C-alpha cells in the first residue's frame, strides 16, 4: 500500500480526479492548504498599509493505492495537475502499513 500525497493548484482538482478515475482509482481525500515556495504570494492594501500574504492557496489530495498502481497514479496526477507555471506543486509517495475500511473492517487492497 502506498499513500500518494499531492499539493496542486486548486482549480486542477477536477482534472486530477478525472485522471485517477481513468486508472480505476475511485477514492480520495482532499483538503485546503496553503503553500510557500518559489511561487510568490501577493500584497494586499488596507487603508494604505501594505499587507504581505506569503502563502498561496493549494489543494492537498491524498490517495491510497496498491503498490503496483503507485507509479501510474503519480504520473496521472502529475500530468493532470501540470500547467507549466511556477507553483504547480509536488507529489510524493509514502509507505503505508495497513489500511482498514471502517464500514466492513476489510484490510489491505480490499479496503480501497
Amino acid at each position, binding site marked *: 500500500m502506498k499513500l500518494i500525497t499531492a499539493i496542486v493548484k486548486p482549480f486542477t482538482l*477536477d482534472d486530477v480526479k478525472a485522471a485517477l478515475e481513468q486508472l480505476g482509482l475511485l477514492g480520495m481525500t482532499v483538503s485546503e492548504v496553503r503553500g510557500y515556495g518559489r511561487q510568490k504570494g501577493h*500584497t*494586499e492594501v488596507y487603508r494604505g498599509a501594505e499587507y*504581505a*500574504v506569503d502563502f498561496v492557496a493549494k489543494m492537498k489530495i491524498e490517495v491510497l493505492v496498491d503498490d503496483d498502481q503507485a507509479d501510474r497514479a503519480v504520473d496521472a496526477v502529475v500530468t493532470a495537475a501540470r500547467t507549466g507555471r511556477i507553483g504547480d506543486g509536488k507529489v510524493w509517495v509514502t509507505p503505508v502499513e495497513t489500511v482498514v475500511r471502517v464500514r466492513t473492517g476489510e484490510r489491505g487492497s480490499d479496503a480501497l
Partner: protein
Amino acid sequence: MLNSGDTAWVLASAALVMLMTPGLAFFYGGMTGKRSTLNMLMMNFIALAVVGVLWMLYGYSEAFGSDAFGGLVGDMHNVLLHNTIGMLAGSKPDQISSLSFVMFQLMFAVITPALISGAIADRAKFWAWTLFVAIWVTVVYFPVAHWVFDFNGFTDPNAVGGWIANKLKAFDFAGGTAVHINAGAAGLALALVLGKRKGWPKKVNRPHNVPFVLLGASLLWFGWYGFNAGSALSASDLAAVAFTTTTVATAGAVLSWLIVEQVKDGKPTTMGAASGAVAGLVAITPACGYVDPLGALVIGLVAGAVCALAVRLKYRLGLDDSLDVVGCHMVGGLTGTLLIGLFATSGVNSLGGNGLFYGGGLNQLWRQAVAAFAVMIYSFVLSYIIGWVINKTIGFRVSDEAEVGGIDEAEHAESAYEFGDTIGGRLAEPALTAMAKEPVAAGSATQKGSAS
C-alpha cells in the same frame, strides 16, 4: 405651500431608496464567489459616488429641466441644482421641497446603473466600469428619466416634460421602463460585449453567501417602499395604494417562484425566495399606483413564475448574464409594464386609466408596449456602443489570470474574508521601515500593558 407631511415622506423615501443600492450590492455580492464579492460590492457602491456627483453637476437638469434638443433631454436650467434651493415642486396647494424631489430622483439614477453590474460579475475592470457608469447615466439614464418621469409642470409651472409621460401617456409609476427595462437591456448588452467568464457554465462558483443574498433582498424590499410608495410624492392615499400593491405583488411572486422551483427542481430554495421577491418588486414597480390589490396579486404571481423560468434560458442561449439582470429586471420590467395594459384601474388613481380587464380596451396596452420597447431598444443599442468603445479603447475585461486568481485581489488588492488563522500575513516592509525611523509617540511607551 410646503406640506411638511408630504416632504417628510419624500425625504424618508429618498433615504429608503438610497439604502437599496447597498441592498443590491449584498443581493449580488452574496451570489458571487468569495474571491469576487468585493468587486461586486464596489461596482454597486461606486454608483452612489459617481452619480451622486454628476446628478448635482448636470444630471438633474438633464433629466428634469424643460424639454430641450427636441425632447431628448431637459435643458440646463438646473445645472448645479440652480433654481431648486428654496423652491417648491408639485401642484398647489400641497407642495414639497424641490430639493427633496431632487434627492429622491437621484437615488433612482444611482440604482439603475448599479443593477447592470450583475450581468458582468467577476470580470470587469473597476475603473472601466466606473467610466461606463458615468457615460451611461449621461447618455442613457438621464434622457430616459426625462421621458418617463418628468411630468409637465411638476418641477416648475412652465416646465415641459418628457414624451413618454406626457405625450404617449404610458403609465410607469415608479420606473418599470426607466429603471428596470433600461438596466436589463443594458445588462444584456454588456454581457455580450464582455463575453462569458472563463469556464462558464461548467465551472461556475455557487453563491458564496446566501444569507447575504437574502439580506440584500430584504433591504431591497424595505427600500422599495420608498421607491414605489414614495413615487406618489405625497403621504397620501395613493402612496398607501402603492405600498399595498407592492406588498401583495411581492408576496405573490415569492410564492409563485417557489412553486415553479418545487415543480421543476423538487425543492424551494432561498435563492428562489429572494429572487422571487425581487421579481415581484420589479414587476409591480410601474403598476403600483395604477392597479388594485387583486391586480397586484396577479401581476406578482405571473412575474414570479415568468422570471423563475426566464433565468433558466441563459444556459440555452449561451449568455453569461451572470446574476440574471435580464431574467429578473428586463423580463420582470416588461411583465409589469405590459400587464398595466390589462389591469390598470382608475379606481385607485384618478390620474390613471383602465386596462383591458377593467373596460379600457387595448388603448393602454399599446402605449405600454411602445414605451417598453422604445426604452429597451434605446438602452440596448447605446449601452452596447458605450461598452464596445470602452472595451476597444481602455479594455473592459480583466486578464485571465486576474479572473482565475480572483478579481478582488487583482482589482482591489483585498480579500473579502479572513476566517482562518491568518497564515503568513504581516505588514509589509515599507511601513515598518518608515516606523523604525520615527520616534515612538510620547504616551505609548509609558502605558501599562503595552507591549512592543
